């Protein structure tokens, strides 16, 4: 039979090459470390190994090649001829070849159920001893040799042996029911476990030895050339590593905190672990190490963890700062961290894409949920007008950046994240809509009874218009928010907030054509108007009411003109309507103030039978002067801060008053006797009137006397 031949062959071989007696009598004085660092001719290594074996057999707790013990365990199984061969093979290379042959023989045997498996050849034990000795070299002392300290050759050959051990174990395990295989399986498995334990620890230690790249957005680390990374293969590694890690460039194609070389090593180690059946250990080690690294990253990016409870209690100033940090962190996560993390997982588990995917998703999911929790906590804070813009920023961040994650995640994770983010966004949306309707309510409710002196622009107008200017800059997002919220409202009939239809009849037609957001903007404007109108009634003087309305109306129009966003929102029609409203106030004002004055200059009733009625004329002049003085006195304390409006108004007053006055003067002034009488009644020349008109609306209650000519 084939198998028997193999066994015999190998036994003879091992006898040929393995003068065991000689070796045991000839302990080699060479220290172990030296041996490992320069792979040496067979005879030297043999003797070194002899020493190891001796050491091992006296080592407590570790069962190795105690022949006696084996015999005791299997007293009646002579087929396992462990006792008659030496455990000391001459050469690992040769034994390896034999092992490979054995593995392939066993695998050829596999399908054949009839055939009895061969006895375990002695070189299996020899191989176990040799590999074990190697592991002992690396992992034996108090300070195991770091993987990075191994020469590339040593590392390679170690992994080769481990791979062979894994394969050997797999082959043997096909016959695990064979009693005669039990010992060898246990033996090989024991060696494998040690190798795995060493590799696992090295894998872990390499994983933990990362460097968090400096915040990539403002780093200047990408200056060093890439090539340097690859040149370090066999020189002093420790120093090289750290300098390479430090110079890790920040391009997206870089691994997070590891050099490419290190990543290659990690890939080899993970491969060995998985091949050895230690996949769970490997994944857990990786997961935990990277979890820690990512946490550190978040911290370094400035994202601090706060409980939801704390966020509610935080001052807005501090919370604003946290939100800014959150946005930066979130951006960095989605733009850089996650893709590089994915890349790392893909590289380390290059041969196991499903593992890479799972691990990455697990890691990033935890991170994203944490980040989303913060956004959620913010959305839950007490609503206030000034928060709207930060809420919008968070909302936009979630909306724009989360889709970047889609391609990185397994579908199920991506869906979960999407669902979570959608929830968070809709909470933010609800908050924003509610902030908006609160704003509407508070405009409606604002009933400050103190009129602004001089009819100037009301602070409410300023506040609202500046607020709306910012709001309009977020137009598209707010459109979306209101649209989404409308849908939620419709779907969720149990909560009956009905801010949308408070004023159904009057505006229904126009509102229907508007988007929800436009409708809200309109509503805010209308509410503001209504409020201002109410406030204008606080002035006893109708003219001052008009001035107040003109001032505020003008301010509103100027703001709208100055912001293309609002302008676009409100539309030309609206603007024209407003302008004509303003003209209306202007007219009212002119009528109220100056109409009365002009009545004094009415020619009617002055001519009686072709002659001027002097007493009446005197009355007219007297009342004109008094009225004008009065107007000048009050209205120069009124305020029109918009210069253009001010001059428009003055010009229009002058145009209205001066020609009339001039003609009145021209027609009637000669009625008076020149000198005292004229001086008494004709107090002002037209030029004086003009000068005085130009003093109106200055907002300074100038003492009358000083300006008198």
């Amino acid at each position, binding site marked *: 039979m084939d198998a028997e031949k193999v066994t015999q062959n190998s036994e003879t071989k091992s006898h040929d090459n393995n003068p065991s007696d000689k070796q045991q009598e000839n302990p080699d004085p060479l220290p172990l470390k030296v041996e490992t660092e320069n792979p040496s001719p067979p005879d030297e290594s043999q003797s070194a190994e002899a020493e190891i074996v001796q050491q091992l057999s006296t080592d407590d707790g570790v069962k190795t090649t105690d022949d006696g013990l084996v015999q005791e365990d299997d007293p009646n199984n002579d087929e396992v001829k462990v006792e008659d061969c030496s455990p000391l093979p001459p050469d690992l290379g040769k034994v390896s070849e034999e092992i490979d042959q054995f593995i392939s023989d066993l695998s050829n045997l596999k399908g054949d159920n009839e055939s009895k498996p061969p006895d375990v050849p002695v070189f299996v034990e020899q191989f176990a001893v040799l590999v074990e000795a190697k592991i002992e070299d690396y992992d034996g002392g108090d300070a195991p040799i770091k993987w990075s300290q191994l020469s590339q050759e040593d590392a390679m050959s170690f992994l080769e042996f481990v791979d062979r051990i894994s394969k050997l174990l797999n082959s043997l395990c096909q016959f695990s029911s064979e009693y005669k295989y039990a010992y060898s399986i246990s033996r090989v498995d024991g060696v494998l476990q040690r190798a795995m334990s060493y590799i696992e620890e090295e894998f872990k230690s390499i994983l933990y030895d990362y460097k968090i790249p400096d915040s990539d957005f403002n780093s200047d680390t990408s200056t060093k050339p890439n090539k340097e990374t690859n040149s370090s293969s066999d020189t002093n590694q420790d120093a090289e590593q750290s300098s390479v890690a430090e110079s890790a460039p920040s391009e997206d194609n870089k691994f997070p905190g590891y050099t490419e070389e290190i990543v290659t090593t990690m890939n080899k180690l993970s491969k060995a672990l998985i091949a050895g059946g230690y996949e769970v250990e490997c994944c857990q080690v990786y997961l935990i190490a990277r979890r*820690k690294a990512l946490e550190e990253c978040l911290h370094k990016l400035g994202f601090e963890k706060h409980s939801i*409870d704390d966020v509610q209690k935080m001052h807005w100033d501090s919370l604003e700062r946290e939100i800014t940090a959150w946005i930066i962190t979130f951006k960095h996560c989605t733009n850089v961290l996650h893709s590089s993390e994915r890349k790392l997982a893909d590289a380390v588990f290059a041969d196991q894409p499903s593992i890479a995917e799972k691990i990455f998703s697990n890691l990033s999911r935890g991170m994203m949920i944490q980040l989303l929790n913060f956004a959620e906590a913010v959305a839950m804070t007490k609503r206030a007008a000034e928060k709207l813009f930060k809420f919008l920023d968070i909302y936009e961040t979630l909306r724009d950046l989360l889709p970047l994650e889609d391609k990185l995640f397994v579908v199920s994770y991506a869906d979960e994240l999407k669902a979570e983010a959608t929830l968070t966004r809709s909470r933010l949306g609800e908050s924003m809509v509610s902030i908006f309707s609160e704003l509407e309510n508070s405009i409606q409710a604002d009933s400050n009874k103190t009129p602004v002196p001089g009819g100037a622009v009301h602070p409410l107008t300023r506040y609202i218009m500046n607020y709306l200017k910012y709001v309009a800059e977020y137009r598209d997002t707010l459109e979306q928010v209101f649209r989404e919220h409308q849908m939620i409202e419709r779907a969720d009939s149990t909560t009956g907030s009905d801010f949308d239809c408070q004023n159904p009849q009057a505006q229904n037609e126009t509102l229907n054509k508007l988007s929800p957001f436009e409708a809200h903007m309109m509503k805010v404007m209308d509410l503001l108007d209504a409020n201002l109108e109410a406030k204008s009634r606080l002035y006893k003087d109708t003219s001052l009411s008009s001035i107040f309305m003109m001032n505020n109306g003008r301010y509103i129009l100027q703001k709208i003109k100055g912001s293309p966003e609002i302008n676009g929102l409100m539309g030309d029609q609206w603007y024209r309507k407003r302008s004509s409203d303003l003209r209306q106030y202007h007219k009212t004002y002119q009528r109220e103030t100056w109409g009365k004055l002009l009545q004094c200059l009415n020619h009617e009733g002055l001519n009686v039978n072709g002659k001027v009625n002097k007493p009446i004329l005197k009355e007219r002049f007297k009342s004109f002067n008094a009225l004008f003085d009065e107007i000048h006195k009050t209205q120069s304390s009124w305020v029109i801060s918009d210069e253009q409006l001010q001059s428009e108004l003055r010009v229009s007053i002058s145009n209205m008053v001066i020609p009339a006055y001039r003609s009145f003067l021209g027609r009637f002034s000669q009625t008076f006797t020149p000198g005292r009488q004229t001086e008494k009644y004709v107090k002002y020349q037209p030029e004086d009137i003009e000068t005085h008109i130009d003093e109106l609306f200055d907002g300074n209650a100038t003492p009358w006397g000083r300006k008198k000519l």
Partner: protein
Amino acid sequence: MPMTDNQGSFLNRISIRRNQVSNMENNHEQDIEDLELFQKHVADRFSDLLPNDPPSTTDSPAIDQSPLFSISWFRKLLDVFLCCEAEFKALVLIGRDPVQFSKPPLDRLVPDILERSIKSLDICNAVTHGLELVHHWQKLAQIAVTAFEQKPMGDGQVRRAKKALNTLLTSMMLDDKENNYHAKAAERTWSFGRRSGGGGGGAGNNNKDRTNGTFRSMSWSVAKSWSASKQIQAMASNLVAPRGGEPTGLAVPIYAMGTIFVFVMWALVAAIPCQERTGLLTHLPLPRNLNWGQALIALQDKIAEEWKKKEKKGTTGLLDEMQKMEKVAQNLVDFAENFQFPAEEEKLEEVAEQVAEMAEICRKMEEGLTPLQQQIREVFHRIVRSRAEVLDVLDQIGKMSPPVPY
């Protein structure tokens, strides 16, 4: 399930009635009826959570599908929470005149419940993190199970199992003893002990150079200095039963719901590893005179009893699977300590039993942990949702609108 049927009809009843009858006067009697029904449901549901057979409590492995404090029991508990919460909302919010929320005693009780909601959210998050850790433990236990199931059982696999189990036990112990996720404990909690399985001569403690780095407060924690036990305490502190004859009946369900909040969160914290649990209350202010209070007290006594045991023994929490896992892990480590190849048949049979038990625990965790986590997330979202709805109602009262900040 009768529970859900029950609830469906209750919700329908309330919403139909509220929609039909707008006259509050006529509603009064029915209100009282609804209120009674709500309390009865609460009492029934929590009674259902008690073990069927009162005399034989914890030590009889009930044939019940979900033994006390098992993962599936906690899932039931959360179901109960969600059901009660839904009914509560229907009772208190649907069709009510919002104005009463601005009058005493509700003007004080409603903010309290909002505050409790917020604190509950943090607890949900903390517990979710805790479950991540339990997941990790399950993986470690799974390693041991796989290793022990290898045939023949050899040194290598036994060492492998021992290493995983030692890591598991150390992690459980650290988590409990240091009881806080900060500083170094967290990292050790979350990592594999180096060579704790003692493979080869290098089992010495040489991880100083390995776990280097300036590590601080890095696991998925809630926030620095956040403490589960303090939050529970704060939640329980203003839980006061309404005095008899309070004018509005709503004080009673609000009180009941508040109590349910505290109770459920407290039970979760006691069961699942959680940031800072030292000094967790063992006694909640529960009403003896109300029927649902009795059911809660019965459960509380069991939980408190277990928790005290836990504090004495230093186990990780009440979660049944976790406790069993710890015990079996200890047994398996003992076995592994004395293992020699080849093992005696007798011993192998013995250990096979333990391994089977561990495999069963792992299976239950594998099946149950993720759904439990998802359910906690559901509770989280529900609480957020309901809080928003309450705020909406308060908005309607109008008094909430702040002045324009000009």
